[in-house]
């Protein structure tokens, strides 16, 4: 299994600013992901964070708005840039272990409110 922590747990930001969310996994993992979730709703995949290369973004998400870093096998960051109230959401980091393990684990989430 993998234990995932995220910082910050919540934040209130002004429109036009940027916030960087950090994700730390307690073990090396093959794949890391970033999701967005409106409270009580399903998850939307933003991108797959690739170690040592550019992230792979899903349709509707672009690097300029959501730059992602993954410098090693246990850490990733997601930046929400030039925020607007529509960016208010829960952002979840997720990781999948290797070795044939298919289970995907999730962090506790970062609750973002943009005013």
């Amino acid at each position, binding site marked *: 299994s993998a234990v995932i922590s995220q910082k910050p747990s919540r934040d209130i930001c002004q429109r036009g600013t940027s916030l960087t969310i950090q994700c730390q996994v307690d073990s090396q993992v093959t794949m890391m992901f970033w999701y967005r979730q409106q409270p009580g709703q*399903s*998850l939307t*995949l933003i991108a797959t964070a690739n170690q040592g290369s550019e992230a792979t973004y899903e349709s509707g998400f672009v690097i300029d708005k959501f730059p992602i870093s993954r410098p090693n096998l246990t850490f990733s960051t997601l930046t929400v840039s030039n925020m607007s109230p529509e960016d208010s959401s829960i952002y979840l980091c997720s990781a999948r272990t290797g070795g044939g393990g298919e289970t995907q684990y999730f962090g506790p989430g970062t609750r973002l409110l943009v005013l």
Partner: protein
Amino acid sequence: AQSVAQPEDQVNVAEGNPLTVKCTYSVSGNPYLFWYVQYPNRGLQFLLKYITGDNLVKGSYGFEAEFNKSQTSFHLKKPSALVSDSALYFCAVRDPKTYKYIFGTGTRLKVLA
């Protein structure tokens, strides 16, 4: 296209009664299926998965799920519900081509004392 459906937005059950949260899927090939639970203000917690083998899968907190290939279903069950089981439950299937998880819309379970 691969998909997963959770037909019930909410399920209410009395404490001590058995509970079922439904999930159906559409995927080419052999499905990898998962259940997660989300408590208020928390991330998703893994409950159980089916990849191969016995159709009845046992997971955390006394939950189990039955894989039914002919009905393309993977319903979550528990013999005796607890008030503390009240949460949001997500079914997910792995897309065999992209390896991405596809999540259902979620079912809110309310266990009434």
